[in-house]
């Protein structure tokens, strides 16, 4: 009876359908376009975990990863597997100490073009040299650098859940190379401050403007006849939509059921149409 014969061979378990998970931007083929994203994946692939890699990719694409947090030295995520309760995945990477980062900053400040490339969202190709100069390795060099854990019953580590998280991370790094530094214990602002000595202004809806008392003069208070409408110049009807959003690129760890850019295109178009179709003032 086959029943007995197959006793030790589990049929591959089917994960439960996950809703609202993070969907990988990559739809087929390899993950990550940029060299550093690929480099990150190489680390995973060097663990030779066989078919789990492929299943991890499929998980990442289907949105089985419910959420993902990148903190200093640690990535935590919840992955929907075949059991009702999602599995907890934790990745830990050795962080660099303050003096170590100090050394990286010195090396970086000697090469201004590197910083510029980073700001443009590009990891300089020979960034590893910079770290090597500081006697460090940006990517996990040995298996000891990286500790992974998953609450699933699979004995293999990394399992497919860890792999899925790993792939998503590669995409996130593609988008924002600073995340890789963050994982190593240095966030973007601190690094900029360390290298450029500059503090980047945090975004707000408007700058803080000093107050101004109300005028007591009746003319200034009530206002007189104005000098006609403010000339707003010619407004041409847009021919492309949601351009600012497109300029910004992919949203980090998008979990929405529809594509953000597509959704925004519809919204911007509707708004512009409504604004230009108001009955003439």
């Amino acid at each position: 009876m086959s029943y007995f014969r197959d006793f030790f061979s589990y049929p591959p378990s089917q994960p439960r359908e996950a809703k609202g998970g993070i969907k990988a931007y990559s739809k087929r083929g390899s993950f990550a376009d940029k060299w550093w994203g690929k480099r990150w994946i190489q680390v995973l692939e060097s663990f030779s975990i066989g078919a789990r890699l492929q299943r991890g990719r499929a998980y990442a694409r289907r949105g089985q990863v419910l959420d993902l947090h990148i903190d200093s030295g640690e990535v935590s995520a919840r992955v929907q597997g075949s059991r009702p309760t999602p599995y907890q995945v934790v990745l830990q990477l050795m962080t660099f100490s303050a003096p170590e980062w100090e050394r990286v900053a010195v090396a970086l400040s000697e090469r201004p073009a590197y910083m510029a490339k980073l700001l443009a969202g590009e990891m300089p190709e020979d960034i590893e040299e910079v770290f090597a100069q500081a006697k460090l390795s940006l990517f996990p060099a040995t298996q000891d650098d990286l500790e992974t854990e998953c609450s699933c019953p699979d004995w293999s580590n990394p399992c497919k859940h860890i792999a899925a998280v790993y792939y998503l991370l590669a995409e996130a790094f593609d988008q924002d190379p600073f995340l890789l530094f963050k994982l190593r214990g240095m966030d973007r602002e601190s690094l900029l401050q360390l290298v450029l000595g500059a503090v980047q202004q945090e975004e707000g809806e408007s700058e803080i403007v000093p107050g101004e008392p109300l005028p007591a003069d009746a003319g200034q208070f009530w206002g007189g006849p104005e000098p006609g409408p403010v000339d707003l110049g010619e407004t041409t009807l847009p021919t492309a939509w949601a351009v600012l959003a497109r300029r910004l690129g992919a949203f980090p760890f998008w979990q929405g059921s529809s594509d953000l850019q597509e959704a925004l295109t519809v919204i911007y178009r509707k708004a512009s149409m409504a604004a230009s179709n108001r009955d003439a003032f």
Partner: protein
Amino acid sequence: MRSIESGVKVSKQNTEMACAWLPSKGGLPLASAPFVVAPLETKAKVRVTPWRVTARRLAFSEICDLLARCAERPVLARGVVAGADVRWFAEALRASMAFVNRQCYLPGVREEAGAIRARWGLVLDDASREHILKLVSRMPGACRCLSEEGMSSPPDSSPRAVAEQFIADAVDNFVREANAPRVVGTSKRKPSFDSVHDAWLEALCSPDATIQWQDRTQLKDLAQQIRQWRRPLQLSTHADYRLVFRLDEPRDDDRAGSAGPMHSWCVNYLLQPKDDLSLLLPVADLWRPRTRSARWLKRHGGNPQEYLLAALGQAAGLCPEVGDSLAQMQPAGFSLDTAGAHRFLTTNAAVLESAGFGVLLPSWWTRKGSRQQLSVRLHVNSPQMQAAAGLSAMTVCEFDYKLALGGEQLSIEELQALAALKTPLIKLRGAWVELNAEQIRAAADFWQQHPSGRSTVGAIVRVALGGGEIGGLPVEGVQAVGWVGDLLRQLEGEGQFQELASPETFAGALRPYQQRGYSWLTFLRQWGLGACLADDMGLGKTIQTLALLQRERERGETRPVLLVCPTSVVSNWRKEAEKFTPSLTVLIHHGTDRRRQEAFRKAASEHALVVSSYGLLQRDLKFLKDVSWAGLVLDEAQNVKNPETKQSRAARSLSPDYRIALTGTPVENHVGDLWAIMEFLNPGLLGSQAEFKEQFLKPIQLRGVTEAVERLKHLTGPFVLRRLKTDKTVISDLPEKMEMKTYCTLTREQASLYAAVLGEVEKSLDGAEGIQRKGLILSTLTRLKQICNHPAHFLGDNSAVDGRSGKLSRLVEMLEEVVESGDRSLIFTQYAEMGSILQRHLQEVFGQEVLFLHGGVLRKHRDRMVERFQQDGPAPSIFVLSLKAGGTGLNLTRANQVFHFDRWWNPSVENQATDRAFRIGQTRRVQVRKMICAGTLEERIDELIERKTAVAETVVGTGEKWLTELSNSDLKKIIALSREAVGDQL
């Protein structure tokens, strides 16, 4: 509460108490305008103090509606005037809409009162920032005077903060409401979402921006993700530079005349320092430290590389070629083949530009109109003929046409050869043009099937003036020989039209500019084209029109002309016709006893001119239609500016040989009103109403497209003649002082009051003797004059003012033109009571302060009024005076319009009054109007004085006393009420 006029419903339930901090003194807030409350006379110091006010919170849609109404006109209704603060918000809303249109916003969240809500945030580029600063500089303090109740100090948020807040709120609300699902009946069920991102997207499209998501940590994460996502933009908005993409065409030594070599186009990257926009530094140079640009940057302490690479990184997402160029160590641009250049021109450029980058394109692409790739040139061959020979705009003539590309006329073979090239851009005889092979093929086919066509001259005129198209292609030019060519040249103002002598039987002399106007009317009339005579008030639109009618009669016209005007000017037309064209028989068609149906048709055919009102045009349309009209004239044609009204439809439904519209309001300032007037004059010229809205109204009013303004001007120009009294060619023809009489009509109420007083007097007059008779006559004269002024003046009962006096309506109509043209006016009345009625009413109508000087005003106040009226810049523009002798010694030379609302019947007194304006220091022409109710004692006494009868020179000079010397029967004749005095009230 005037809740109805403002469109906002107010009740106890939807209001609350708030605190308004207003400049106050002596325990009272300072009035927002002098006509609200007269300024208080105290030496007390002005302080900003809190006042409890009833307030009503407005929903965003209510704000939009209200502000849209204010933007149109500050006077919402009689006595309801939008203040400068409300008008400021209307301007700010207009700016917000422009920002929405330009897509200057990004989705985000906002934390308020502990909750995280979806929010569209403004992303300002330099241009929008500048607009906001312009707005800020004009913000009245009142825009930021409200605070919650119980605050101890006045609000001190800066104008800029208030402006940015309002605009940001408006954009946020507008985008959400424009995207809100239109569902009828809301379901109570809370929507459930799979992820916080879905909930966020939904909240960004809902009127209520609440994100339906429970997990606060995840909401916080969302905020963090949004910050991270938006960060790249942060970098570029704070940069000192802007990245500019310039498309350079292949150099001349490249092979021309064909698709061009591969990779001959180039997009070069340039940096533009924000503090010196004239500088464009080639990025290629920046990589080389020894170039001028690099040295310049070094001198200015700039290190743009960081910005540059970040910006290029962002641009890479919008234009793939930019991304490819980043593979180079020192990216400075990229090259394109012709197809790529075309793609860049048609798509990438706009995308990069709206994302905030600079884009410079070759001028042949950006120049307006030259991008019309393919156009039609029309050729019309017509014989040499004179207009009079039975030709009109309705005449059909033949035409053929040629196709042109980028201004070059091409044969079919050439076009087909080009279409086969399969390249979107070609260099044609030295200039680049866009090539749309499919369109060319379609046009060539169409051309082969219809090499020529037939059309009315009217339709040819329209395309020649830049309206309409042929076979779906724009018409670039019309070449015409023969009479059609003559007509087109004359319409475009190239050929001189014949200047005509005044009609033989015309009584009176036309001034030179009137001669030209009359000739122009005649020219268009001969072609059956409609004319809009829009001369300034006082330049004699009536007389020019009458001259045309007279000429038509002299040349054998036997059919009548229908003239439609507001009731208040019916009498004026009769009087003017009597004066200038006594041989024209005039039928006044109004009043309850007017002729109808067959009787009217018969009477009309026996007259040269039928004068009627807008009300009757619509009411009697059925039988007005049965008459064969030679022409239809609309006086005060702004009455048909709304194409939907019944009178507007009625005017369009008649089919006379020719049509004329008269108006004194500058039609070009009211684009929205133009369609209906032009549709009446020249149906089809501006296309359908919807086409007009799309092609002209929206581009001009919402987007300020100057090219559309020009196109509209070109299209309508030949049919509109507007001369200002300040025009050089006109001013030399005008006397320094023009005295005119304006005849008005009584309302039915005025007429019945008048008749009642007459009846009373007739009885008592016969028995009266001596001093008693004298007193009776004088008081009767006063009462009748009061009735002619206004029933409320006569009754003295403080009753409503609107719509009860023909004279007042006429005054308001004339003042509308005066106020719009920026002139200042004096209005004289004998009676202080009437003066105060005028002041109150005119303030309500025009929403501005009206000065009123009467005997009771203190000297220092009088001096202040005069000073304010005389000052340059914003000042009260209407001054009502009721003073014996009009306040001798007053210098009111800023006025160039003088109205005598009622009469002293004493020319020297009236002249003294007039001379307040017409005296040394007056630099403009002064128009003086004496207002007279036709068919009443006002008209007859005026005639007596004019005729200078025995009594005139000596006796009349003393005022009204001489009237008491007249016999009872003479007196009764003078004060009688004629039939034509009464206007038809609607």
